[in-house]
């Protein structure tokens, strides 16, 4: 029968069935019994890893005064898988004081993988960031009713004084690229974005700890895995001590009020930065927490560019302060004799039809009075004689020798300060001129001798020049941090960088700077009790001249070298000298005399009207529309606020009293329970922009 042959096929079919099941049994056996890996993976799934965040390191000034500390804040986290459709939304929204719409939108945003790339239904996702203490306690009471919602304790940065925003920097939530660069970070973590917070991120952040909790099938926590054997305690971040002097910094920011520019002060012996003011500045507290994005945007469109750290990013012509370095070069190269080289200057430098103007003073003169009177003619001749000196062969080689001197003084390259964003400035070499001019000679480049033309320095570099002179020929790479967790910085911040200038040449320059203070352009800087060396600068630019001062004191045991740079301030003696001398006095004496305090207040209120009518840069013109819009909005807000202010004044006084009480508590070391963003009434350094509305009335008074 035909079927009989086919009946054998049942064996084939049974064989297939048996074969499949046997293969599956073998696979089951390997999965479940042979291998331990899957059990481990399953364990990790059943674990609840509780991350414990370390406290970020505190930051103090050189005298141990607390500048930056931490304050507890609470994030609300959600595990979608547990939360969805299991909570009473109305009740939840009331507990957190949010609208139902916001709740729905937030939940959708979390689930949207475009907005939240790391989304998983099974892990904690950030629902609400940094809720205040009161909200936290209200929410915590009702927590048991909201399965799937958790509270993550974090800390936010808080600032004791509204100063040094540019130096201290700020924190923000990590970006996707931060996470990719360093797998230490997880979404929702915070990372330093600017200043010290960024540069010392790894020291400040510490190491996250983890508690491994066991969960059973009901999701209940069953205690620590292996009695906590694998738990890790968080390692707190290291505290930083800065070279910064908080009082000096605060004074500097006051003095620079209403002006654009920068002050940098350096301790010559150590290279520690004593103060670094960039004006306009802002309150670092405005960059905390949920307000950060909005405030940063406001500042980014501000034409005064408050976010720019002019002290290290502003590249300015150094003006006459540069002449000190020139003098060192000419004297060391012996192309100018300190005593016998007398160069004429009758109202300037006249040679072969070229004219560089100068003011009235006796002529001819040698290097010391030339520095004292800040004679342009002298230094033009000085550079001319150097570049045309036959010992170099040709002008190109001579210029490159000159350039090497400049570079050895820290110009033209980044000094390597320990905060990010430093610019290198500009020192031309012969190749640069070959490119730019084609054919050139000593006269075509003569303006670099007086710190004009192609030369650009950052205020930090100018201050460093002061430190180099104070040290008689070397500098130490400037740095804002003095110790990390009690330990000094690496060796590169202690090493002496010797310039090519000779000690004798520096001595002559110091004499010149002393002369400048004694009876020359810097005579406004005289103070009893210590001797001061200084040099003014009046840097020409397209608009009004910049006012510059560079100096150090005391002359024989230098404690401070300083650079003051006020944009469009006019003569160096107008803004540079008084601000510089007040700063030096504050630091050397620790306080200002009564007269000088009055002087400081006067300086504080002498604002420069930039008006931003100056020839606009390209970037400005791009921004101008948005600025106009912002200004219009601001004006209307201001009007409304002024009305409100009168009513609130009474209330404000009361609050002040409270604040003071709170401060006392802080000093006693009680827990700091302030909300993340404090609206305070402390006097803060106001930026130029904030002052604008008041200007008219002030002018009337003046």
């Amino acid at each position, binding site marked *: 029968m035909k079927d009989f042959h*086919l009946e054998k096929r049942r064996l084939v*079919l049974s064989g*297939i069935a048996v074969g499949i*099941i046997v293969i599956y049994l073998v696979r089951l056996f390997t*999965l*479940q019994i042979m291998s331990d890996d*899957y059990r481990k993976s*399953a364990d990790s799934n059943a674990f609840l890893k509780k991350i414990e965040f370390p406290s970020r390191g505190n930051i103090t000034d050189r005298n141990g005064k607390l500048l930056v500390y931490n304050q507890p804040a609470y994030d609300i986290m959600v595990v979608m*898988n547990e939360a969805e459709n299991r909570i009473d939304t109305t009740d939840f929204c009331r507990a957190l004081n949010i609208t139902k719409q916001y709740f729905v939108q937030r939940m959708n945003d979390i689930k949207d993988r475009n907005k939240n790339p790391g989304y998983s239904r099974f892990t904690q996702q950030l629902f609400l960031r940094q809720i205040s203490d009161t909200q936290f306690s209200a929410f915590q009471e009702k927590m048991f009713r909201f399965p799937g919602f958790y509270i993550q304790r974090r800390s936010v940065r808080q600032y004791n004084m509204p100063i040094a925003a540019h130096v201290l920097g700020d924190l923000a939530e990590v970006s996707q690229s931060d996470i990719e660069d360093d797998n230490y970070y997880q979404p929702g973590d915070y990372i330093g974005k600017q200043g010290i917070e960024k540069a010392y991120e790894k020291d400040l952040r510490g190491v996250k700890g983890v508690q491994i909790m066991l969960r059973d099938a009901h*999701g209940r926590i069953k205690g620590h895995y292996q009695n906590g054997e694998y738990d890790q305690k968080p390692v707190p971040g290291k505290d930083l001590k800065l070279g910064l002097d908080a009082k000096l910094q605060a004074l500097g920011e006051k003095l620079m009020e209403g002006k654009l520019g920068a002050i940098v002060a350096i301790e010559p012996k150590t290279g520690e930065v004593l103060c670094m003011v960039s004006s306009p500045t802002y309150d670092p507290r405005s960059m905390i927490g949920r307000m950060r994005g909005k405030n940063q945007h406001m500042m980014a469109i501000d034409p005064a560019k408050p976010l720019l750290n002019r002290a290290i990013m502003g590249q300015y012509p150094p003006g006459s302060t540069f002449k000190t370095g020139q003098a060192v070069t000419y004297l060391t190269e012996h192309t100018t004799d300190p005593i016998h080289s007398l160069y004429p200057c009758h109202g300037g430098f006249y040679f072969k039809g070229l004219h560089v103007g100068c003011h009235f003073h006796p002529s001819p003169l040698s290097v010391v009075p030339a520095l004292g009177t800040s004679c342009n003619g002298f230094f033009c001749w000085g550079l001319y004689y150097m570049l045309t000196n036959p010992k170099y062969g040709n002008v190109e080689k001579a210029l490159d020798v000159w350039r090497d001197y400049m570079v050895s003084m820290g110009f033209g390259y980044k000094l390597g300060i320990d905060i990010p964003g430093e610019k290198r400035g500009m020192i031309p070499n012969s190749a640069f001129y070959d490119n730019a001019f084609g054919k050139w000679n000593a006269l075509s480049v003569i303006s670099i001798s007086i710190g004009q033309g192609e030369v650009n320095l950052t205020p930090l570099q100018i201050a460093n020049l002061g430190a180099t002179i104070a040290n008689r020929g070397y500098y130490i790479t400037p740095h804002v941090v003095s110790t990390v967790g009690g330990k000094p910085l690496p060796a590169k911040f202690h090493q002496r960088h010797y310039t090519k200038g000779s000690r004798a040449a520096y001595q002559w320059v110091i004499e010149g700077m002393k002369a400048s203070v004694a009876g020359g352009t810097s005579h406004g800087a005289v103070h009893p009790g210590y001797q001061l060396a200084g040099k003014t600068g009046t840097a020409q630019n397209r608009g009004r001249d910049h006012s510059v001062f560079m100096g150090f004191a005391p002359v024989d045991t230098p404690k401070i070298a300083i650079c003051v740079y006020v944009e469009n301030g006019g003569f160096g003696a107008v803004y540079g000298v008084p601000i510089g001398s007040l700063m030096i006095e504050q630091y050397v004496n620790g306080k200002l005399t009564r007269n000088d305090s009055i002087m400081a207040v006067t300086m504080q209120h002498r604002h420069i009207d930039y008006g931003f009518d100056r020839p606009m840069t390209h970037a400005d013109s791009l921004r101008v529309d948005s600025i106009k819009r912002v200004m219009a909005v601001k004006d209307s807000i201001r009007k409304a606020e002024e009305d409100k202010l009168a009513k609130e004044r009474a209330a404000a006084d009361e609050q002040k009293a409270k604040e003071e009480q709170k401060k006392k508590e802080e000093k006693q070391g009680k827990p700091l329970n302030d909300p993340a963003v404090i609206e305070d009434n402390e006097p803060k350094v106001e930026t130029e922009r904030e002052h604008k509305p008041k200007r008219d009335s002030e002018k009337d008074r003046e």
Partner: protein
Amino acid sequence: MSPSTRKDDQQGILQSLDWWTIGIYIALLVLGWMSVCGASYTYGDTEIFSLSTRSGMQIIWIGTSIVLGFIILMMDDRFFDTFSYVIYGALLLLLFLTIFNPHEIKGSRSWLVLGPLRLQPAEFAKFATALAEAKLMSTYGFDIHRWKDFGSAALIVLLPMICIVGQRETGSALVYLSFALMFYREGMPGSVLFTAVAMVIYFVVGIKYENVMLWDTPTSVGKFVVLLLVQIFTSGMIWSYVKDKRMTRIILTYSFGITLGFLLFSEFVIPFDIVWVQLIMCAGLIGFLIYQGLSTRFINYLYIGLFAVGSIMFFYSADFVLNDVLEPHQRVRINVLLGLDDDPAGAGYNVHQSEIAIGSGGLRGKGFLNGTQTKLKFVPEQDTDFIFCTVGEEEGFLGSAAVLLLFLALILRLMYMSERQPFKFGRVYGYCVAGVFLFHVFINVGMVLGLTPVIGIPLPFFSYGGSSLWGFTILLFIFLRIDAGRNLIRQ
């Protein structure tokens, strides 16, 4: 038929009913319900019998299934024979109408919503198709070797498949491929089955190792192995269909010798792509087969040649199909299966998590309702397609092996019962049932174990859901009813 014979009939059913199958069925139902409990249980729930939970609902499905099974056993066995085409026609119409169903659930239109009930007609079409197939093939004079007869038998399977693909339930449609086992039993040439298996091997090996290079030569391992397999399979076919052992040996010797020679040349002298050599060799082999076929007039040579040509054409078009014809999610699933995309958080997430869940079960499992993996919802679709995870995690190797062996026992028992049918109708239907169960277990457990593609089809009696449970119950109990009537002598 007098009332007394009818009564005898009923008693006869109870006696001749296959109680082994009933026992396995009940055991699977109980284990299945426990798994649904474990999989759908969320912590905080206290009532596994409550109708608001899936485990509670599953009790209703199980209860109604048993009632359904009982009703079927009470029916006259000739009912199915008589009305098989009517049942098939009605369900085919329903399947066709479902294509235009406005309710879409997870991108599929296969669900019919009738008030509180949601039914998947595709689950019921299986027994209807099996009945129609049994009816057709048991008609007098049906011969599967006749193209016309085979064509109509194939059409009966194809029609519901097309409708189900139209509902975007490709997975359910693939189940109908299991009818091939029945065709094989009923006389379909074994070479067809072998060819199908060979195609699967080409596809998997060729795609998976396409981008792996053979040592230092610019040769794709995938292509190399597939072309070598084509030559081996071809010579194997010469062995079994021409019975010329000498020729087979010569062909194999030449194939291996020449391949090895060029391989060494490419490896040590001048690197080049050996695939070209292999293609030339295959072309030579095919030419030789055609020449032999024409000169000896032995048609098998030509068929073997056709197999070789088809193999190569299939392999080269497979890549094209994978990249241009399949939909992205299907492509991803195939890639994941072949281990091309190893991405635990992406498309392979389900499989990876289910492997973890099963692996964590160990020998004895974590105990009823104590699985952490499935409880904490790490495994998606855990109470439907991925339910076997729960078995693996909570019952361990012992439990899951027992479940697999129960399924094996059921399938073997069904085959045994099919063979004892006095009529072809019962045998064909029985093999259809066995094939459907085998296919479901093969694909579903295979995907949970990471061995077969992730195709969303349920595990019989385990996966949560009324439609599939009812469908499988009807499928099984109709056969039990037919089987129970085997000893009845009719006029």
